[in-house]
């Protein structure tokens, strides 16, 4: 049985939740109050992730796919369980598309996007074939790296006088309406809802004592880092530019102006590569574990390859324009897919738990 340590799970969770949102300007619809929206999303998100963890513990350590056959039986439970690996593959495909679009506009501007997607995925598959411990150990190593970069960025930008905190005023000037709109459902579902995949990762953690603390800690760390980045981006760019720029984090990095530290884009690339790598790995690994369970195979390796190739295929066929790609993430997926699957289904499971126990009690 492979095992990962709690710190590695913590790092994996934090990086997974930071995800590509660090680049895209999380909840930028809330304008200058984006940081409030992120903070609120984080608090609710932590609650949501803890609910997942509660279900995981209450079922006696069953993984996400096993919940449904266990609660609803073979005939209803299996199709429900099947939904998840398919969605994870779709989510992984979205990350591949993000990468395919982000790299050409930032650094590799004339490399064909399929080459980028292909090589990136190649690295992910290679790491995944090593198993989850490899990914987890990498995450444990990357987490400090990311935070050192964030600190470096903040110091460099602050000392070049980029931040004007007056840009954040008035706080909640446009009312709570647009903040709530950013929190629900996108803010909550993106990253925090997706953390349902950790209902699979948790089963690999060796020491399960204190898992809730580490999980909540990772979520809060990631969430508040996102809020901080929003805060800095608004104070550096101003509300209008923050909302207009597709990648506020990159725009912010480009503002630094100390004599020789001119363009800090490289830091942005580090965020992007590391977070996309972790996020894609977790998506594909979860999908592979689900598939392995559902198909009844012995090893995850063929499943990893299958899931990856499916994700690549979906990614190559999914996007025509990037604007639409983002629009889908903002308007369609949260309502039509993520809310039912990350909120409604686990909610039903949560409610069905006592019923299941009661029935089991009757039988004995």
């Amino acid at each position, binding site marked *: 049985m492979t095992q990962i340590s709690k710190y590695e799970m913590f790092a994996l969770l934090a990086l997974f939740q930071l995800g590509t949102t660090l680049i895209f300007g999380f909840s930028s619809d809330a304008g200058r109050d984006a940081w409030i929206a992120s903070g609120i999303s984080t608090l609710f998100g932590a609650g949501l992730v803890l609910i997942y963890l509660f279900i995981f513990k209450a079922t006696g350590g069953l993984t996400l796919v096993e919940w449904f056959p266990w609660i609803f039986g*073979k005939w209803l439970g*299996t*199709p*429900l369980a*099947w*939904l998840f*690996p*398919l*969605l994870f593959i*779709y989510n992984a*495909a979205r990350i591949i598309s993000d990468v395919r679009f982000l790299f050409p506009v930032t650094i590799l501007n004339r490399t064909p996007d399929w080459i980028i997607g292909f090589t990136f995925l190649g690295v992910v598959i290679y790491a995944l074939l090593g198993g989850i411990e490899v990914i987890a150990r990498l995450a444990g190593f990357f987490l400090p790296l990311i935070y050192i970069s964030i600190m470096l960025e903040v110091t460099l930008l602050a000392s070049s006088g980029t931040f004007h905190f007056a840009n954040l005023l008035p706080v909640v000037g446009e009312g709570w309406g647009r903040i709530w709109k950013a929190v629900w459902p996108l803010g909550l579902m993106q990253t925090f809802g997706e953390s349902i995949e950790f209902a699979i990762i948790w089963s690999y953690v060796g020491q399960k004592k204190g898992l809730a603390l580490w999980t909540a800690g990772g979520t809060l760390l990631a969430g508040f880092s996102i809020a901080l980045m929003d805060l800095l981006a608004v104070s550096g760019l101003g509300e209008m530019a923050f909302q207009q720029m597709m990648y506020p984090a990159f725009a912010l990095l480009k503002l630094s102006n100390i004599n020789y530290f001119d363009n800090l884009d490289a830091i942005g690339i580090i965020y992007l590569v590391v977070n996309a790598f972790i996020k894609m790995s977790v998506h594909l690994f979860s999908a592979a574990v689900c598939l392995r369970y*559902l*198909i*009844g195979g012995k090893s995850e390796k063929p499943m990893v390859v299958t899931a990856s190739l499916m994700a690549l295929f*979906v990614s190559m*066929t*999914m*996007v*025509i*324009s990037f604007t*639409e*790609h983002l*629009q*889908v993430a903002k*308007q*369609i*997926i949260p*309502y*039509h*897919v993520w809310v039912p699957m990350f909120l409604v289904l686990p909610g039903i499971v949560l409610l069905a738990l006592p019923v299941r126990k009661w029935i089991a009690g009757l039988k004995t």
Partner: protein
Amino acid sequence: MIRHFFSWESRNLLAAPWKFQLTLLVGALLGSVITWIRWKKKSKKRN
């Protein structure tokens, strides 16, 4: 390849999100058939 053939294309998702939901459901049902067959074989072996 025909444009807008796959339900997960962003334009299709914007126009008709139910197509994507349907695809997920159909995929899940097809997958379940595999699962049921495999599990049956397994339990037969065990018996």
